[in-house]
């Protein structure tokens, strides 16, 4: 039996269909909620979000269903009751995350918390539920603070995530794949096999030259090509953008080099950003509108595309507790 936690309940991995593994309904840095320049009415929020999810659902029909993994984490505007309503009305499966985007998005209460407390927090959100929503998290978010170097709090969060992953079986995905050596050391010390970890944003523009891809691959980790669509060709690209062809070529090197099973792919788009302008025109549907045609154009077959977006993602999201030795 396979089990995956979505915000509307635990489902079989066979029901997931096409999976966008690293996305956001809406992301905002903690504190951005105080700055009214970003506020939108509930009507605007639904209006910006529902059509994108409905389109995602339509686009994914050949795969039977659409699954949207929300990578927002605690303190960044994660709003699980809202996600539940979106999922119910659009039929898109939404997987919520526990954990933190990085130490610099963990508020003082969690900044002061021990590894043990953080572990309990993550385990509770996966096994019991998030707040009073009743919804269980399906994945654990961790990440590297700004500055391309893991800080002590980042490491504490990674260690707690490794422990929570072993107990609950939920996978881990990271914000940034830079400075991976301390992360790999923590996962080894905690006995978490690295195929349970997706090292995210390995494809973004600012990380290039700072990622030890060989170390991640050697440890069995998964490489996240999950910022597809943040192209420097856009009229106003974000600072982490990258030339479209360069990012595509990077992925193609993996696919053509026999490393399909170690990659996962997503767009990291915001349906309706919470504390920043977002990138106009960039949605999860880039995957269908631009990337898949680009992959076909490069000679990648449908079986490989299915493997990445359906089989590998489902295998990754399936809860796989690791019993203590």
């Amino acid at each position, binding site marked *: 039996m396979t089990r995956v936690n979505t915000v509307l309940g635990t489902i079989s991995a066979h029901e997931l269909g096409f999976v966008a593994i690293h996305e956001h309904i809406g992301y905002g*840095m*903690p504190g951005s909620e*105080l700055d009214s320049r970003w506020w939108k009415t509930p009507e605007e929020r639904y209006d910006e979000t529902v059509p994108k999810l409905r389109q995602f659902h339509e686009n994914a029909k050949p795969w039977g269903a659409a699954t949207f993994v929300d990578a927002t984490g605690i303190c960044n505007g994660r709003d699980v009751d809202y996600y539940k309503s979106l999922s119910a009305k659009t039929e898109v499966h939404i997987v919520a995350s526990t954990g933190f985007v990085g130490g610099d998005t963990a508020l003082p209460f*969690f900044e002061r918390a021990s590894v043990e407390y953080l572990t309990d927090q993550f385990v509770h959100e996966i096994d019991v539920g998030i707040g009073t929503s009743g919804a269980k998290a399906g994945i654990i978010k961790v990440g590297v603070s*700004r500055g391309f170097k893991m800080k002590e709090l980042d490491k504490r969060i990674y260690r707690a995530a490794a422990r929570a992953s072993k107990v609950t079986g939920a996978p881990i995905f990271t914000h940034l794949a830079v400075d991976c050596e301390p992360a790999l050391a923590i996962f080894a010390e905690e006995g978490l096999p690295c195929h349970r970890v997706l090292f995210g944003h390995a494809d973004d523009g600012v990380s290039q030259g700072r990622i030890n891809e060989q170390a991640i691959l050697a440890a069995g980790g998964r490489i996240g090509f999950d910022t597809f669509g943040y192209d420097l060709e856009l009229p106003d690209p*974000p600072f982490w953008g990258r030339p479209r062809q360069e990012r595509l070529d990077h992925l193609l090197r993996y696919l053509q080099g026999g490393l399909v099973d170690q990659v996962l792919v997503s767009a990291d788009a915001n349906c309706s950003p919470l504390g920043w302008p977002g990138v106009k025109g960039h949605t999860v549907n880039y995957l269908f509108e631009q990337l898949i045609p680009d992959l076909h154009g490069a000679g990648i077959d449908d079986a490989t595309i299915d493997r990445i977006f359906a089989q590998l993602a489902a295998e990754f999201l399936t809860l796989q507790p690791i019993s203590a030795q």
Partner: protein
Amino acid sequence: MCLKHSRGAAEPVPPFTSLFLDRPADREATVGTVNTVLGAVEASQLGVTLLSEALMYVLPGAEYAFDIRIDRAEVFDRLAARLAEFKAAGGGTIVDATGMFQGRDLRLYEALSRATGVHIVATSGQGPENMLGGYFLTPQTNPPTPWPAQKFAEMFGREVNEGMVVPRLERRAPAGMICTAVSLEGMTATDGSLVRGAARAGATYGVPVFIRCGSDALAELQLAIEESMRPDRVVIAGLDRRDAVAKGWPLAVAQAGACVGIDHVGSTDPFYVSDAERVALVLDLIGAGHADRIVLSSSATGVAFGEPGNDLPFATVLTTFVPMLEQAGVSRDLIDQILITNPARLLSVGGEA
């Protein structure tokens, strides 16, 4: 060292001009009145006022903790009981000096004020740096430069000029004071931006600025004054800290024309002086001619989540400290000045009680 401490250099100080900020809203009635959660109230109506209390304190992030449940009905009853006790002891107004990011709940405070008849003043501001969210410290820009004073001034100023925020939803009543704090181990660049931003907003919109002092109260006061903040509109709080008293800050702050926050009345924490020493401090300030610069409070936490808080009643100043002052020979007039006149003058928009 705190992980979030900014490494940004202090920003250059622009000459102050209110041209940077929106014009104050045209609210004729506000001059000489106080911004409470239920709207403008004549300063003369406040009665005994405590300037530094916490109704609901929430350590940022605690609202997301898996093992913390905030039961609003229970919180309401507990706070209503504490406010009723304060009122019965002769109290009139409580200032919730937690700022905008440590549990402030405007709808709850409005309902509490209606139910108990106690005036409640809620505050804008935040700090010190390690209490801030990442939005202010590592923004999504390259490089992630922490917020400068001007952006804090705009955000705090709008809370006075347009109303305090219910995050992502709406603005309600204008803030009555701006609170900030400086790190105890020394002022960070962002602490400095917070103080300057609070002072710019306070000077422009006429509300007092309340600074929990760090390692150098006079330098921190100086920052606010450099931003055109009148010293008599500034409260330097935490001056009943043992180190603050030892360094002579209370008298120096009063001599500089600012208000001296003796705001841990009833605390038995050794970090602060005892109540007996607080009485001596009050006598010293009165003796030096600074009775008009003294404010008293107890920093009680009505309810606290994420931190232990304390069990002090809001009535502590009235029930335990006032008798000690009387016993020490402080006249009723002076006590009224400290508990009624000084806070009314401070909280009056524009400072004219």
